[in-house]
């Protein structure tokens, strides 16, 4: 057992933290739009957002692999921007996880924004707050529990990612070798000690995160916070 054995853990945490931070920012406008719009295309957008929940990760991974190819628009754009490829890179894992974990950010946020209703925003407008001002100073603070839930679920879900990583990231130590891939490999090579250690860590971590989630939600309910 060496520190190097733990490298996949750090990489995984780094991936989950990056993806969570990005998705909270990128998911907010989408969730906001879905919560308010009466547009006829909204159900379609909602369905697309929820696809990663039901799609086998290999299917999502397959399409992402195609999109990451430097001859495809996304892959080509990335190549011209950074000079590298998205496949088999940490950046690629981040982009893939943005899709993979999207519903876990958007759905709690959308629920929070919907339950917020129009009333607080009208109140904010009536005292002179413009839309962005009202969002940042009224809607977002009142949706804090939705943000916490979204952050915890997104983080936890990204931690356990396996199929998509296998498809687009491979198994490059320090770059794409996340904890689930590492465990898979340890088991394949019959190194049960390391597999036990990493699995136990992931189990403990996931439990702690979910415990935090339910504690937050339970307390919120008691204090009457939305």
């Amino acid at each position: 057992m060496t520190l190097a054995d733990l490298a996949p853990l750090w990489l995984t945490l780094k991936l989950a933290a990056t993806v969570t931070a990005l998705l909270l920012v990128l998911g907010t406008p989408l969730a906001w739009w879905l919560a308010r719009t009466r547009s006829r295309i909204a159900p379609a957008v909602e369905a697309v957002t929820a696809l990663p929940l039901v799609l086998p990760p290999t299917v999502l991974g397959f399409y992402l692999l195609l999109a990451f190819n430097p001859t495809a628009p996304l892959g080509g754009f990335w190549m011209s921007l950074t000079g590298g490829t998205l496949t088999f890179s940490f950046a690629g894992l981040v982009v893939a996880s943005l899709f993979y974990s999207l519903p876990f950010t958007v759905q709690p946020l959308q629920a929070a924004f919907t339950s917020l209703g129009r009333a607080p925003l009208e109140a904010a407008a009536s005292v002179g707050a413009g839309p962005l001002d009202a969002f940042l100073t009224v809607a977002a603070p009142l949706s804090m529990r939705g943000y916490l839930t979204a952050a915890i679920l997104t983080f936890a879900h990204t931690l356990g990612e396996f199929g998509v990583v296998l498809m687009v990231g491979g198994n490059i130590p320090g770059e794409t070798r996340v904890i689930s891939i590492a465990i898979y490999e340890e088991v394949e090579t019959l190194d049960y000690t390391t597999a036990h250690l990493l699995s136990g860590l992931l189990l403990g971590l996931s439990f702690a995160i979910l415990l935090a989630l339910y504690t937050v939600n339970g307390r919120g309910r008691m204090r009457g916070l939305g």
Partner: protein
Amino acid sequence: MTTIDLDIAVQLSDFKLEIDRRIPLSGLTALFGPSGAGKSTLLRVIAGFEHGAGRVAFGDEVWEDGRRFVPPHRRRIATVFQDPRLFRHLDVRGNLAYAARRAGQVQAVPAMIDRFGLSPLSGRRTDTLSGGEAQRVALARALLTAPRLILMDEPLSALDHARRLEIFPYIEELRDEAKVPILYVSHVQSEVARLAGHMLTLAGGRITGFGPTTDILGDPVLAPGLGGEEPGSLIAATVSGITEDGLCALDFPGGTILTTQRLGAAGARVRLFVRARDVLLSRERPEGLSALNILPAVVSSITDAGPASADVALDCGGTGLRARITRRSAAALGLEPGVPCHAILKSVALARD
């Protein structure tokens, strides 16, 4: 005087709100009518919470027409909602500061806290406030936006009677001191009688009347359609003192009215509301009645009101008084314009002015 210019049409679930009118704004103007008449929708159109209603202009400033739409936060109107809609993530002081900062008058917050008696509450979470306290905070918050117009959407309807009485003086002070016109939605006649100088009546999405509150509430044609409450008369009077046996004496040009309610010190101006059906008529001055208030009057006109009733308009020393009696009684008493008689008031409701 400021005006609000409306040419709007909004389709609601079961009728259409259609208004094409210029409404002068001074003091407190009530938007009055039964529930579902379109009052709140009209207020939301003016506030800018409903899009695409038509044309809305405030003075010569166009807020909405086919091309333009000034968003609510740029109209500099404050809305006081039925539920106070305080920001529950901020304490009382935070709520006030939120509004004041956006109007650039943070320095006005402490004075407003004093004015609305909020010092003991300023650090409280808003969900620990009573209904009356919360509505006081909402009024102070509205005023801190330095508004050009205040919209109130039944701000007292969620409160019980005692809390309403607690809020009335603050609304009256706002009306009299702040010099900001107020549009006040209500379906409660006593509220309107007490607060509004002018009123606009709405029924089925259309304006049915506009004028001084005293005229409209006494109008036998309009009043029956105004939410089930009966017509009556508003009388402006002055408190002259307390009698030895504890009654409050109120003078008006037609005489003196006595009540058991105390309404402030001598000299205080009050408005009384007398329902038409609470006025009995007698040709002779009646003797042996328990009624306190018997006023000499002269019949000025008689109009039919319903299959068997008549509305008798009386001149009581220059003040109009209205009685609802049966046509049979009117005939039996030989009432016609110019005939002197006595009006017996069974009860009066009081509204401080």
